[in-house]
């Protein structure tokens, strides 16, 4: 079984090589090769789910894989999954499959596009599976390359600016993280486990100090913030979110979906896997800072979303807002809060993917994304009467984002608020207002786009075709199913989240 993770990790790479071997003119073959690859990869992630033991809190022993890589530095090729990473891995598998289907209409340089997508998928898996800090960092950075090209080549008008901004911003965060990784390596005495993420956990750096600029600093606090920077830029937490609207708006639909659905979760996953367990006392000490930043993200993201006339930008800002909830849940450090945060990571992955895909479907018909055009005229209007199928799926996605009871967003947000209320009451009260603003901007957007008179432009749009409906259905099912019965996901994560909380509780 220990080879299974390797298969999941490397299968997209095999697919990428296959895609590269197909001549560039055989576009349809390339699409099918990618589809088969992502489908098999998704099935493999389901096999992971089937063989997952929910009773084990730590890494699944029968699934872990370890092999020496750079032996002098004790760097290992070490993979493993637990209840926090498995939902993310399944989500990754699912979203890439769906994105392959939604990218069927990409015409420009199809071969390079799908090859990069598969490379991206492999590196995302790598981030969620790596148990060696060096390996983690390599995957964390390698992921930037395909993203950079995907945004820069297939993006909108302002794609070059967006691609470079995304690249530089993330790189800045991760290079600071790299200094932190190196400092950890020396702090543990360059031993066998210096890059082993699991062995670094447990708060062994609490008492350590380092001498810097003439005074002693707490090692733990200093490098908690170094890691924080790396992950917060990725999430993105206010005030590090400014790259996100550009990257989202300019990226092609499938890349936006991956960006919002999976890549943003890498930031919060980094907190849960690295920043919190390695620096538990600093995490507990600064939980209120994380909560405040999370709360600002929720409110600020929501208000920014309300001001947008570009529907994709609106969804992008709503991501900032929803990832703020994840930060809130994590900073609560209670069972409900933490479970809610991980569940929200999963649920936001499905609901925001729906929203971006729906915007993409519309964009393919209209070639613009304006709710209200810059010259003040109406962009979309009356979609509801003209495109009923589209509207129904859109409604499901929108209400899931909005947190309507019965759909997935509600449960995770409710859990987060339950978890945090006793700890940061004021912050909770303010953040709940964010929920209200969230409902306001989504409904207002819906009203402007779907109701009212059918504009001439809209009359020419076709409703969704079978392929489009086909790839939306799994997401609709997921959003509804996990809204009613979230236990499959909660069961997976329960033991692992419990273990993390036990660790944090020592410093609470």
């Amino acid at each position, binding site marked *: 079984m220990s080879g299974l993770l390797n298969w999941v990790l490397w299968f997209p790479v095999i697919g990428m090589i296959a895609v590269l071997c197909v001549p560039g003119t055989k576009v349809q073959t390339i699409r099918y090769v990618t589809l088969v690859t992502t489908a098999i990869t998704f099935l493999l992630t389901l096999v992971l789910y089937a063989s997952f033991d929910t009773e084990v809190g730590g890494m699944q022993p029968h699934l872990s894989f370890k092999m020496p890589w*750079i*032996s*002098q*530095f004790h760097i290992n090729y070490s993979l493993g999954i637990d209840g926090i990473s498995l939902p993310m891995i399944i989500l990754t598998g699912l979203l890439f499959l769906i994105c392959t289907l939604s990218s069927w209409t990409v015409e420009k340089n199809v071969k390079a596009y799908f090859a990069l997508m598969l490379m991206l998928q492999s590196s995302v898996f790598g981030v969620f599976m790596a148990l060696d800090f060096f390996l983690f*960092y*390599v995957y964390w*950075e*390698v992921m*930037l*390359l395909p993203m*950079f*090209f995907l945004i*820069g*080549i297939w993006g909108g008008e302002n*794609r*070059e600016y967006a*691609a*470079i901004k995304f*690249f*530089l911003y993330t*790189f*800045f965060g991760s*290079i*600071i993280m*790299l*200094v932190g990784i*190196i*400092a950890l*390596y*020396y702090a543990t005495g360059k031993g066998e486990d210096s890059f082993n993420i699991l062995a670094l956990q447990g708060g062994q750096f609490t008492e350590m100090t*380092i*001498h*810097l*600029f003439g005074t002693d600093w707490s090692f733990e606090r200093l490098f908690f913030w170094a890691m924080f920077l790396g992950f917060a830029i990725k999430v993105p937490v206010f005030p590090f979110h400014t790259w996100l609207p550009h990257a989202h708006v300019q990226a092609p639909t499938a890349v936006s979906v991956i960006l919002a659905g999976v890549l943003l979760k890498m930031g919060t996953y980094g907190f849960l896997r690295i920043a919190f367990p390695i620096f538990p006392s600093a995490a507990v000490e600064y939980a209120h800072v994380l909560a405040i930043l999370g709360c600002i993200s929720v409110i600020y993201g929501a208000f920014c979303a309300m001001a947008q006339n570009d529907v994709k930008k609106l969804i992008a800002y709503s991501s900032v807002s929803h990832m703020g909830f994840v930060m809130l849940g994590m900073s609560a450090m209670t069972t409900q809060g933490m479970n809610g945060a991980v569940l929200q990571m999963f649920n936001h992955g499905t609901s925001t993917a729906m929203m971006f895909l729906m915007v993409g479907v519309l964009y393919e018909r209209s070639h613009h994304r304006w709710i209200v055009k810059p010259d003040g005229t109406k962009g979309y209007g009356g979609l509801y009467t003209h495109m009923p199928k589209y509207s129904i799926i859109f409604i499901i996605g929108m209400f899931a984002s909005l947190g309507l009871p019965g759909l997935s967003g509600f449960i995770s947000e409710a859990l987060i608020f339950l978890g945090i209320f006793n700890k940061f009451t004021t912050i909770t009260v303010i953040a709940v207002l964010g929920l209200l603003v969230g409902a306001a901007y989504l409904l207002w957007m819906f009203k402007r786009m779907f109701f009212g008179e059918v504009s001439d432009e809209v009359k020419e749009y076709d409703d969704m075709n079978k392929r489009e409906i086909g790839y939306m259905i799994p997401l609709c099912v997921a959003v509804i199913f996990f809204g009613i019965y979230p236990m499959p996901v909660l069961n997976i994560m329960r033991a692992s989240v419990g273990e993390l909380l036990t660790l944090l509780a020592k410093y609470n």
Partner: protein
Amino acid sequence: MILNLFSNLSFYIPEVLVIITMCSLLFIESSYGPAEKERKLVFIAATIGLVLAFVSLMFNLGEESKLIFANAVVIDKFSTLLKMIMVLGTLGVVYLSKSSLDIYRGLKSEFLIMVMGVLVGGMLLASANNLLTVYLGIETLSILSYVLTSFKRHEATSTEAGIKYALYGGISAGVMLFGMSHIYGLLGTIQFAEMLPAFAKVQEAGQQWLMMASFIMFFVGIGYKIACVPFHMWSPDVYQGSPIPVTTFFSIVPKMAGIAVLVRVSLLFFGESQSAVEIGWFGLIQIIAALTMSVGNISAIGQDSMKRLLAYSSIGHVGMMLLGVLTLNTVGPKIIVFYGINYLFMTLVAFYITSAVSDKFGSDSQASFKGLVTKNPFMAILMSISLFSLAGLPPFSGFIAKFNMLAAVVDAKYYGLAFVAAVNSVISLYYYVKVVKVMIFSKAEMEGPIDTFRFSNQALIALCTLPVIILGLFWDKLMLLSEGAKIFIQQ
């Protein structure tokens, strides 16, 4: 005595081989006519000479460290490894010059002869063990470099660069010689090995600040060779004015040689003692390293000429290598060699492709790189790999070079410098990515395929890119090799 010196020659085979190659090139050159075909012989001779030199260096690697020529020259693993980098770099340049149109307009093979001469100077510098040898090495290196710079004698920029280089070089060599004479006056010896005991006496006499001043003057000469701030002003102009093979050569061989001297001097004088001068010296290097990185990388941002951009980027990389000097007692020499090897391949690839593109369009501005991916996707990808590697992105070798350098700096507790280095690599990513953007996202402006990418060229470039990728993933063997980079200290 004389016999003794001759017997020492057996340890000096690599250098002797290069000198023999240089002389035989002179003969071959004077015996062939202007025909293109006959030039091949020169390249074959140069290649054979360099390969033999490389092989004999490999044999030297297994030997014990020793002092030869009345202690004027030291053969240790550190110098041998750096010499190997220089010889490899020269080999790369020789092949680059073969296809480059920049050089052979109305000229025969003088270029190769000069390059061999500079290489000898660099190799001498890498194993210099007294002040006189250092000066000899630097001058051999410099004088031929002035000629190389102005090789495109019909172009004003090249001539201008040559004059600039010569003026700058003359002044800094003068200052350096002045510093050396001070050192000699204070210590009474030019041998590095005898200096350390004498050094203690100077300190007792309370003259260490005079000493420091003379060392700073000494540093001017080295600083000028490696183009660190504030002695870097000549570098962009010279790089831009020179033919591309010369630029490539300058960004590898003199830099390695200069770093070698700096490392040896720093270790011999300041490695052990805990004196005020030592703190002053390393303080100076810290400031210079931080400035060199920052100035190099920030200045590179606005450059349109690829040669200038790479010149500034190489200044940035020298700044990174200077960080290794700060950690001499622990891992410094090893990391510098490691960095040097990785830097060599990335730089070669970047320059090879720049050369082919600028030969085709007659300009090395970024506009000629526009839409390279549509004309030759393979080369565009390799160039991107090389640039990403220079910026220090995994999984390429530039990343592990930077990683190890940062690790050494963090280990020595220079957290501030580590932060500066980290920020600098973000800045450097910006201008490298801009080139990638131009190559891959922009539409081609210049018409026509780039026929200067011949098959042999492409194969060579691919061959040089291989280490960039392979070393980036599996670097433990290379680390083991660099591990041997010990500096011989005579007791």
